[in-house]
């Protein structure tokens, strides 16, 4: 078990290192932060001073070396824009983003999983077809289209809700719905197919054949098995809690991590971008770890010895 955890953690570290490296290369090769932050009309001396101050004149490999060394020591750098610690800038945005993504996750799970189960149990019925149709729509409509449509209906036409900003809880409703509906559609689809797969298994017939009432067959026999693939998707959604709302935050002018990322990328504010990416990679890796442990909890075949299970 200890070896299993060690391997997983080692792999997680490598993943994070790759993400950090990739971001460094892309951001550094795609534009000069000095020019972008100081503006095209900045005097050359100012640009030179900026470059010197941030070490932008060093060879790229040396910059990378310094940067990577700092990260290993837990030093994530400062924003080139206002000199504040990047981690501080990002940290103050996290709760703002979670205020959208956590309620949205609740909607995804609370709406998507029951809808998927219902559709599977009433396969081919009108309800099933409606759920599947909505699910395809939720699956394929980009979140900015859905967001703008909701704004058009509830803010512009009906005037019930504000179209953007972060002044009150009412401002959160539309972005939360935008995030939640799309995710619920995805989850409904996966849950439905996981359920259908399980309902076709021989052990479901065995349970019925020994006299277990149908409701208990579903709850006691089918759901615990269907939970295994469904957990994968939920885990992925947990991984997007921090930075999964980039588009929606932009549409609704919600000052969360996603908006910060967009601004930082536009400014080539490397330390901030890196800090966010590191955070995203870390949440993704953590949620994957959680999913792996949940697998072991849900599926005894994977439990005792991950190497031995057939």
């Amino acid at each position: 078990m200890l070896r299993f955890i060690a391997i997983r953690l080692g792999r997680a570290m490598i993943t994070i290192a790759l993400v950090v490296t990739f971001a460094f290369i892309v951001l550094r090769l795609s534009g000069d932060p000095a020019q972008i932050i100081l503006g095209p009309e900045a005097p050359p001396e100012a640009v030179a001073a900026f470059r010197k101050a941030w070490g932008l004149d060093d060879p790229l490999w040396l910059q990378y070396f310094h940067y990577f060394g700092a990260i290993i020591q837990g030093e994530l750098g400062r924003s080139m824009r206002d000199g504040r610690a990047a981690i501080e800038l990002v940290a103050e945005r996290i709760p703002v983003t979670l205020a959208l993504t956590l309620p949205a996750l609740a909607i995804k799970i609370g709406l998507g999983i029951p809808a998927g189960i219902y559709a599977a149990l009433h396969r081919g019925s009108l309800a099933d077809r409606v759920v599947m149709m909505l699910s395809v729509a939720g699956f394929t409509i980009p979140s900015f289209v859905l967001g703008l449509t909701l704004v058009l209906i509830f803010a512009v036409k009906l005037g019930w809700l504000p179209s953007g900003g972060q002044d009150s809880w009412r401002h959160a409703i539309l972005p939360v719905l935008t995030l939640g509906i799309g995710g619920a559609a995805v989850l409904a689809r996966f849950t439905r197919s996981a359920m259908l797969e399980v309902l076709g298994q021989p052990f479901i017939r065995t349970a019925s054949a020994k006299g277990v009432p149908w409701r208990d067959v579903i709850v006691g026999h089918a759901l615990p098995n269907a939970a295994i693939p469904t957990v994968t998707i939920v885990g992925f959604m947990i991984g997007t809690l921090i930075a999964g709302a980039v588009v929606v935050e932009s549409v609704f002018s919600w000052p969360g991590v996603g908006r910060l990322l967009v601004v930082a990328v536009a400014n080539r504010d490397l330390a901030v971008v890196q800090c966010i990416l590191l955070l995203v990679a870390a949440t993704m890796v953590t949620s994957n770890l959680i999913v792996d442990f949940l697998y072991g909890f849900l599926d005894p075949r994977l439990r005792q010895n991950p190497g031995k299970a057939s």
Partner: protein
Amino acid sequence: MSEPYQTPARTAELSLSKLTVSFDGVTVLHGVDLSVGKGEALGLVGESGSGKSVTWLAALGLLPGKAKITGSARLDGMELIGAKPETLDTVRGGRVAMIFQDPTSALNPVLKVGRQIGEALALHRGLSGAAIRAEAKRLFDLVGIPDAERRLSAYPHEFSGGQNQRVMIAMALAGAPDILVADEPTTALDVTIQAQILDLINTVRREMGMALVLISHDLGVIAETCDRVAVMYAGRIVEEAPASALFAAPHHPYARGLLHSLPPLGGERRKLVSIPGVVPDPRALPHGCAFAPRCPQVSEACLSAPPALRGVGDARRLACVLEARTVPLRAFEAA
């Protein structure tokens, strides 16, 4: 084996009449009439797709919702076809238990076997808590699973196929049923294990005075175990007789073909014969007897309508226009 089981003094007789099943408009079972007496061992033979399993799944309401079922299945006079789910839930496992072909996939992979057995004990015997554990352990001992106490906490993937079938049998016995329907119980198992499982089924049947319906395409298995045998072909029973009579002198050309495709145990060695052709597609059954296209003795009379199952002699029923005439083996060889 531990002490004998207390058999409830119930007499069960399950009789099917005109049982018909169709899926999406395709009829796969064409009016089956069959009954199982108390404590009797009935064998059901036929090729895959002949309707052996569907017959019993239909009787117990275990077919998917799209299956259309007509006819009747009466258990002690109680109609099962179209019965309320609550009624069926007490019958299934409690009066009629079923075990299946592939025991490992027939058990829930994420539940401990002790819990899966306990479920039946709680449902049909009203046990709870420690009583469930004790009774489950007794059943494990009964079906010959060593180290019962500990093994109750194991999962199906920790057992071999043969052991899982023992678990299935223990689970079937948990409700103290009057009838055990064993659907190809040994097909997925190693040959050496097959004999053990058959012995086990026979032993518990005798001890509990349970009736047995043994579904198999293995004539050897049927011959060893059953009092009476029904032969199915393309969704119909074509011959039914006491096992000894059927194996000594099969009347229906299909039954003869089945028997002749087995090597004789004693006497002279002979060439094995096969039945030419394949089982017809249920969507395109011949107009008359479904076996006619493969039958060495086909005549004009076979082609108009499927022959009805009628009594022949004392205890035999036959669905063939021929009257108990022997079919020479050569007829199959030549075809």
